[in-house]
């Protein structure tokens, strides 16, 4: 029997139970190369594209635009042009007959976040995958481990990948101490001790990239490589209007324009994303944490700390990824490490490039980590 590949609704993040079809990017009859984006779907958090796992021809659209279907449900079929229609119809019918929507019980058996005691702090983390040189994902200012929802699983195919909530963020303790990179880096290294990780590939976004660099400078032997995405700590410039607007926004209407600055395509900021950020900002201690961090790290349009020269001198294998349309930290910083780093600038994407260009970023990181 010829190869028939089913395209199913992906699961992005722990809470996703169903997704909406926004539009098909490939029409029935179109030829598809492996890795091409074929359909745009939307979870309640964010929209994104599903890429083809194989090359072939788009043979069926089972779900149509605006349909809302459970995770794992059949969206469409890719197969070679010579596969007979009857064969495809049979596979579709069988897939639909056998499909069992994920239940709440299944959710609980999937990976779920844990808490680690690091000194007096509690740090939430989520582990996926096993073995290899472990990687640790470190989010940016005001983010949490869900910032990696499009990346975490894709990177965990051949290694253990941990995503953590930094102090002051997500469900970790809100005490950020003096708010310095050193304090945050100590927590990151403390987490590695807790998880029994001797040496890790650190993958940081924005402020998290600066934390990863600070950890590498403190404990060079424990860091295998650095992946720095839209990184802080590589130069002076930063959009402190964004930082201050994010910190001070008291409600949904005030935060939304701030969040729109994070993306090359501002329409990605939907109701749920805004609501999740406001829920985070309302937690006791978050306001103080954010103000402390902003006061220590980002003042009057400038970053207080540049780690550029010291990191360049460290000589760790380094991958730098930037969205060309980044409105928070300019993409010009991508070349800060000169020829000491592999530099990838992605056109049209903003600060949250790991979400906006997830497939491309995942491929770059997987290739870099080997």
């Amino acid at each position, binding site marked *: 029997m010829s190869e028939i590949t089913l395209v199913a609704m992906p699961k992005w993040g722990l809470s996703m139970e169903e997704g909406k079809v926004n539009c098909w990017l490939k029409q029935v009859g179109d030829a598809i190369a492996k890795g091409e984006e074929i359909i745009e779907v939307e979870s309640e958090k964010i929209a994104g594209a599903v890429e083809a796992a194989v090359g072939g021809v788009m043979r069926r659209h089972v779900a149509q635009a605006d349909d809302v279907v459970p995770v794992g449900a059949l969206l469409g079929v890719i197969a070679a042009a010579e596969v007979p229609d009857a064969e495809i119809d049979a596979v579709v019918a069988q897939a639909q007959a056998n499909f069992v929507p994920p239940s709440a019980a299944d959710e609980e058996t999937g990976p779920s*976040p844990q808490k680690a005691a690091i000194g007096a702090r509690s740090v939430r983390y989520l582990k996926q995958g096993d073995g290899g040189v472990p990687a640790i994902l470190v989010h940016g200012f005001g983010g949490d481990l869900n910032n990696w929802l499009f990346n975490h699983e894709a990177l965990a195919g051949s290694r253990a990948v941990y995503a953590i909530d930094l102090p002051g963020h997500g*469900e970790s303790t809100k005490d950020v101490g003096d708010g310095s990179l050193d304090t945050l880096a100590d927590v990151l290294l403390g987490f590695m001790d807790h998880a029994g990780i001797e040496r890790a590939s650190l993958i940081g976004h924005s402020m998290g990239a600066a934390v990863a660099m600070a950890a590498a400078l403190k404990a060079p032997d424990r860091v295998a490589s650095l992946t720095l995405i839209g990184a802080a700590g590589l130069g002076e410039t930063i959009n402190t209007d964004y930082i201050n607007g994010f910190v001070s926004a008291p*409600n949904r*209407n005030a935060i939304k324009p701030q969040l729109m600055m994070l993306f090359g395509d501002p329409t990605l900021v*939907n*109701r749920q994303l805004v609501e999740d950020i406001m*829920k985070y900002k*309302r*937690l006791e*201690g978050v306001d103080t944490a954010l103000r402390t961090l902003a006061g220590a790290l980002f003042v009057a349009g400038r970053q207080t700390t540049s780690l550029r020269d010291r990191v360049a001198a460290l000589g760790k294998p380094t991958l730098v990824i930037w969205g060309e349309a980044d409105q928070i930290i300019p993409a010009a910083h991508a070349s800060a490490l000169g020829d000491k780093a592999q530099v990838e600038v992605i056109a049209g994407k903003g600060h949250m490039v790991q979400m906006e260009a997830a497939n491309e970023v995942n491929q770059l990181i997987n290739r870099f980590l080997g």
Partner: protein
Amino acid sequence: MARKITYQQAINEALSQEMTRDPSVIVMGEDNHGGEGSPGEQDAWGGVLGVTKGLYHKFPGRVIDTPISESAFIGAAIGAATNGLRPVAELMFVDFMGVCFDQIFNQAAKFRYMFGGKAETPVVIRTMYGAGFRAAAQHSQCLYSLFTHIPGLKVVMPATPYDAKGMLIQAIRDNDPVIFCEHKMLYTLEGEVPEESYTVPFGEANVVREGDDVTVVTLGRMVHFSDQAAQAMQKKGVHVEVIDLRTTSPLDEATILESVARTGRLVVVDESNPRCSIAGDIAGIVAQKAFGDLKAPIEQVTAPHAPVPFSGALEDLYIPSVASIEGAISRVVEYRK
């Protein structure tokens, strides 16, 4: 935020966290510890439906059972609030509020105003409202519009466990009297609630669902009915925006008007009787301030102007249904395509 708890547990947790944080917070009402600690009484009620269960042992002396006299203990709570405590008084059913209107309407609501801003009354009155519990005419009303009418009171009605916890903490920390309305049919509703403390500000409506065709403004239990109706209409290609007011005083007019400016069509869904109601109030505001935006007459979906029936069959017909909300949405869409 994976942890899910019920609306009732969320309220209990808010009380517990605020009592831990602030020793001036006390809880009082009928059967709030249900005789726990008295000879022969081992199993505390924790209020009529058990919302305050467990607090008595955690906070000895700060959970007070009162006589069955609403006028007395609501007055006592208001007096205590003016003297430095932050009482959370539980008045079982909002239907019984009539006997303490003077204490609430004429005293608590007026102190700040009449004493030149020098007096504060940080009291919270928690109360149950709403039909569907087979509790008949005297235990099923939605009287929130009465409180909304009185300047000086804040009126809050969370629709979800998340809002219940955050808004009760906000209410306890607020320096003005707050009427905190809990729908008895929502107590068992589960939802994601952070373990940490947080506040949800008053006067900020929640956009439960975004849409550009019709605006549905609603509150309390009707938020869930309206969202189901909106989901059904989505399948017919009608995109409904659902706005949960969360507080009727203060009122988030801006969110309503901004939405109607986009959709041009308004349905207000309110479980209470229709005369002098929140539904009528919202319709009036929109008719006055957004007349030019409207493409169709405003629809109001409410209970009829009648007491809540004793018969279960009639009670089910009395409460606005998902189908009646869908009908109203269809009418404003069909009015002028």
